[in-house]
């Protein structure tokens, strides 16, 4: 089957390191999403798999074959480009047939494959059109169809939805998920900067971080199933990137340590966190993290003033001014009647707290933490006697 193996893969552009020491294994049929902020090298990694760039170091294997020096066409992969890259002077049909004709496939086989792709992507009425006569979404479907007819073992998607408008993006996202189920055995590697796409499509997310010129830093911040990255971020970068709006971070100092319990002091506010106390020492500076959807509003011992409210309809983003914090605390609330200036009670449930040491590494959280849901957790405030 089509397992992709990357071993110690690095890529430099001149003197600038872009990717560093990537070890990765993508199983057959897996939907793997490379996600990260711009400049993290996620597209470059995809292009390394495609064979459009050569790695500076390391080995890439597809299906047990070392492909480092194989040209793109002999790697059994197909790529869908961000700009679609359809041949403008060819009809939709010719666009799909071009690569196959070049491989000297018999024409009835070509027609059969095209008919399959056309059926899957509903392109029947567009076959004789030129790309410029198609809408963005239609072009995208043709680009995907052109990949399908090659019957590759691996599909590579380079930000395929970023040129579409919001409504079409959601629709096409569903189509890609459906396509992945329909094609079954083919692996898909998908690059995006949009974490919603990553969370919804991926079997596994590979979150890359920008190297910013540092040669020793690892490129992969964390790789794992989407909910693992959400509930158990390995470090502060992952915690801040996954989740929208982003996690709140509060500077604090370790006050006391218990069994599976850490109490930290954030500018006089004592917060308990249910997580491993291993390796921590009292007085150590740490960063507390809590997701906006986990902050409990309207109850709890703490009070803060509302500095700003964004009402989205289904819920509101409430910004609270914390004493001694430079950025306001963001909380999600189903209420839409919270007013700016209101003094609001809030609570940080201990099960949902994240804690990061000064080097950014997260303290391990128990498995129970994944089960917590916002609004349902009991107040776990540490009350000093």
């Amino acid at each position, binding site marked *: 089957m089509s397992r992709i193996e990357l071993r110690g893969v690095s890529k430099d552009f001149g003197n600038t390191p872009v990717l560093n020491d990537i070890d990765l294994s993508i199983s057959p049929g897996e939907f793997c999403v490379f996600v990260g902020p711009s400049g993290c090298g996620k597209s470059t990694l995809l292009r390394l798999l495609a064979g459009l760039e050569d790695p500076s170091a390391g080995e890439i294997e597809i299906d047990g074959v070392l492909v480092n020096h194989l040209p793109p*066409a002999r790697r059994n992969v197909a790529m869908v480009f961000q700009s679609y890259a359809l041949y403008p002077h060819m009809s939709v049909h010719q666009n799909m047939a071009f690569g196959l004709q070049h491989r000297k496939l018999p024409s009835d086989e070509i027609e059969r494959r095209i008919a399959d792709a056309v059926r899957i992507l509903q392109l029947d009425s567009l076959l004789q059109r030129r790309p410029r006569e198609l809408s963005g979404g239609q072009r995208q479907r043709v680009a995907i169809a052109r990949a399908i007819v090659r019957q590759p073992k691996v599909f590579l998607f380079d930000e395929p939805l970023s040129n579409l408008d919001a409504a079409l993006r959601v629709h096409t996202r569903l189509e890609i998920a459906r396509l992945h189920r329909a094609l079954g055995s083919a692996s898909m590697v998908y690059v995006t900067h949009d974490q919603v796409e990553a969370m919804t499509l991926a079997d596994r997310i590979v979150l890359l971080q920008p190297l910013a010129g540092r040669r020793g830093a690892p490129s992969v911040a964390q790789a794992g199933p989407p909910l693992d990255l959400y509930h158990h971020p390995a470090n502060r970068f992952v915690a801040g990137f996954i989740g929208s709006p982003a996690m709140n971070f509060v500077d604090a100092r370790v006050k006391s340590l218990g069994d599976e319990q850490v109490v930290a002091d954030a500018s006089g506010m004592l917060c308990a966190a249910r997580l491993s106390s291993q390796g921590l020492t009292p007085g150590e500076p740490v960063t507390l993290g809590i997701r906006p959807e986990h902050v409990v509003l309207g109850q709890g011992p703490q009070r803060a003033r509302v500095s700003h409210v964004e009402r989205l309809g289904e819920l509101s983003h409430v910004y609270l001014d914390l004493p001694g914090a430079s950025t306001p605390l963001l909380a999600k609330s189903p209420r839409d009647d919270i007013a700016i200036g209101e003094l609001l009670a809030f609570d940080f449930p201990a099960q949902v707290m994240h804690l990061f040491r000064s080097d950014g590494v997260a303290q391990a959280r128990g498995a129970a933490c994944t089960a917590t849901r916002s609004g349902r957790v009991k107040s776990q405030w540490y009350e000093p006697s």
Partner: protein
Amino acid sequence: MSAVNAAEGSARTSQRRAAPGRRRFPCGPIVYWAASLLFIFVSIFPLLYALSTSFKQGSALFSPTLWPEAPTFANYSGVFTEQPFAQNLLNSLLVAGSVVTLSLVLSLMAAWAFGRVEFRGRGLLLMLILSASMLPQVAVLSGMFELVRALAMYDTLGALVVADLVLTLPFTVWVLVTFMRQLPKELEEAAAMDGVGVLTLVFRVFMPLLWPAMVATGLLAFIAAWNEFLFALTFTLSTEARTVPVAIALISTASGFELPWGKIMAASVIVTLPLVALVVVFQRRIVAGLSAGAVKG
């Protein structure tokens, strides 16, 4: 205070009124048309004079009236009967056609190399190609003559094709390199994913997209080869191998003591017509190609 405001206000409104008023300056269209007509007259007049002369004979040649008093086609028939002018026309067509085809094929491949492949000395090589077009024709004439003789091409049309390529290639290469660089890189990568080789990439993916540029450069190359005189004069000897510019220059009367202006002008008009036709036909294509936005897709 309010008075000042009012004054400012009225000044502003009068300015606003003045601006479109200037555009409606009554003499504008007149000046525009007068200048245009003058320009058209200056550029067309020599051609008109040639056309008029080609219909005159005898002493009428020396009267400067634009409209011939006794128009005659004798010059036109004379051009074809007194020398192998049809053969010369065919020669010109063959030479110019081959030059255009060869220089487009060669420069398309060169444009891919210069525009898309990174190699050492690329800039230097491009400048060298450009500098080849800076030399005056006379400077390369003797060297070219040796080359033509070494290739055993003297007094053949092949000699003219080779020589004319020196004139057209630098220009076509440079123009096509510029256009090639504007084509999206993803297209080439998509072709690489399709497993397409370089020649297929250049001729089946890039060439259709560069068609407007190729038509424009091809047209200019055709005109250059069609009108080329010095090489054609030097590298051909027999009347049958001549191209039209040389043939026209060598039209003479039986006595040899007068210039047959009527025939020369008739031949010139005949030679100009294909060019006019080409430009008219292909100009539409160029415009159509550009407005279709072939590259953007």
